[in-house]
């Protein structure tokens, strides 16, 4: 399946067989991973042939809008959903035939901080410790250590129903760390959080990563991916449309984007004029976007050209290539709610 191969060397009369195991040494591998729902004309290809190779000790950002296939991919890699095609290997184990081994080796924090509101934080951590088979003597100490780590020591004996959104997320993260997994799946860990809580969770994720934990992070926040991830993949319509290091992907977009707001009546004319400065790029409604082939120095020419054509410029914004541009170039539209 996964490109496991062998090379043969001959030294004198001795024949050496070196078995190469490139894939099983990677913490997360997906090859042609598929998940289709329904059949015939009604088939929905939620994930349609996803290939991923996530390296040991990296934070990998998995980006895409709602419904792109991010969560479905994560659900397959975390054994919560069987693939309808392809192969997934996590921590060296097959997600279908060795699902239980996969579960022992991963930490999972899924969307919406799924926590029983009737239990206290400490109780949930102890339950988690039993589920993962930690020695009983370690339960209380481990729960205390994790509560402290995520700043919930004072709230540990309170029912989770009384926690704020940020506290739930932090507890959710602590629950996924009970067995010190080497691979961590975080599915939109900061969605709905205020900026302070988001930054504090980012710091915790970085700290975990510094300790050697491989993190697969799905997010619809471009800034989050830019801040945290060493490499990213963009998924749209169930397929990976871009993959690489954020800096390289941004460099591929090349030129900066100039966003110009004009009156709706002049939009078509302005659009035709802007096209002479570079390729038109997707932009928010009421705004025109153009990739300036000649770079920032072309801005004054753009303004002059529009002015000479009698078009009033309402607003002007020049942006260096961002992940939003990478996303827009890959998918043809901008990521809703993007904040970078």
């Amino acid at each position: 399946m996964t490109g496991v191969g062998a090379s043969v060397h001959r030294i004198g009369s001795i024949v050496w067989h070196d078995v190469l195991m490139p894939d099983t040494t990677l913490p997360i591998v997906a090859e042609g991973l598929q998940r289709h729902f329904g059949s015939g004309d009604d088939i929905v290809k939620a994930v349609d042939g996803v290939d991923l190779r996530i390296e040991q000790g990296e934070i990998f950002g998995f980006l895409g809008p709602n419904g792109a296939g991010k969560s479905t991919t994560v659900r397959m890699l975390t054994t919560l959903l069987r693939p309808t095609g392809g192969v997934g290997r996590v921590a060296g184990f097959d997600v279908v035939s060795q699902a239980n081994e996969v579960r022992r080796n991963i930490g999972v924090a899924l969307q919406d901080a799924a926590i029983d509101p009737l239990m206290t934080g400490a109780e949930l951590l102890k339950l988690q410790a039993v589920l993962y088979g930690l020695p009983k003597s370690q339960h209380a100490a481990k729960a205390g250590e994790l509560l402290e780590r995520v700043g919930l020591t004072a709230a540990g004996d309170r029912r989770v129903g009384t926690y704020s959104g940020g506290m739930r997320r932090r507890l959710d993260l602590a629950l996924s760390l009970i067995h010190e997994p080497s691979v961590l799946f975080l599915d939109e860990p900061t969605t709905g959080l205020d900026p302070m809580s988001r930054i504090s969770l980012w710091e915790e994720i970085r700290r975990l990563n510094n300790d050697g934990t491989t993190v697969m992070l799905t997010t619809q926040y471009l800034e989050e991916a830019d801040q945290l991830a060493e490499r990213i993949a963009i998924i749209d319509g169930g397929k990976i449309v871009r993959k690489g290091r954020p800096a390289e992907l941004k460099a591929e977009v090349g030129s900066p984007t100039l966003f110009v707001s004009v009156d709706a009546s002049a939009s078509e004319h302005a659009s035709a004029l802007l096209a002479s400065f570079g390729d038109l790029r997707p932009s928010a409604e009421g705004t025109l976007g153009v990739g300036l082939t000649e770079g920032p120095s072309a801005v004054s020419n753009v303004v002059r050209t529009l002015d000479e054509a009698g078009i009033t410029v309402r607003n002007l914004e020049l942006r260096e290539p961002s992940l939003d541009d990478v996303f827009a170039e890959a998918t043809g539209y901008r990521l809703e709610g993007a904040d970078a």
Partner: protein
Amino acid sequence: MTTVESPAAATRGIRLDPSSLAQTWAMSKRSTLALWRQPSLVVPSLIFPLFFAALGTSSFSRATALPGFPAVDSYLDFALAGAVVQGILFGSTVGATALATDIENGFFDRLLSSPSTRSGIIVGRMAGGMVFGGAQTLFFILVLLPFGLSVKGGIAGVVAMIIGGTVLALAVGALMSAMAIKTGSSEAVQGAFPLLFIALFFSSAFFPRETMSGVYGTLADVNPISHLVEGFRDLTIEGFSGSAVIRAILIPAGLAVLTVALALRTLNNRLGAR
């Protein structure tokens, strides 16, 4: 424990030895605790059957003279079995509703992504309902004793009924859990509750089968609830006997085997199909 070595596999520095027994026990404690912390969910299933029993005793006490009615000292002796089964049907939907809520809020996925056995997750979730089923049985007996109830089966009969009540709670809880897993909706589980009540009414829970006729009588004859109710009833009004114990315990146990298998199968389908 079997350890599987893999180059990339590692939970670092911690020896893990998940035991399915310990997992089921921990899940059981959680579901029992959940019932304890939500008294508003469990109190109705303690009150309503007593209300029915009181209503029946005041309205139907002369019905004990009808032909086909077993010889009893008090209508309560007859009514106990119906009250117990009714209470358990009521109460065991609570656990299934909690399971549906776990699915709705995603906690179920957290459990499934851990290395715990699927049966442990389901049975653990049902355990609160089982403990409650046994406790309900004892509660109804203790509350009705001062009002004229006498259990001819004695302590052994009471113990058999508590065991039967516990197993029945598992059987019904697992059936409702299958629905919870299938739909993932607590409303759907609560919406299905009237079906259980219809099954109860087409049984000998409130009147002996000997007094029934026509379609009603036929349905009551084939309804397993009739037979297990009669097991409970015989333990109350006739005394401890092998036949009564078999009906009070083995019928719910047989049902439990089927419904737990159904719940696990539904879970398996959910993992594959969702």
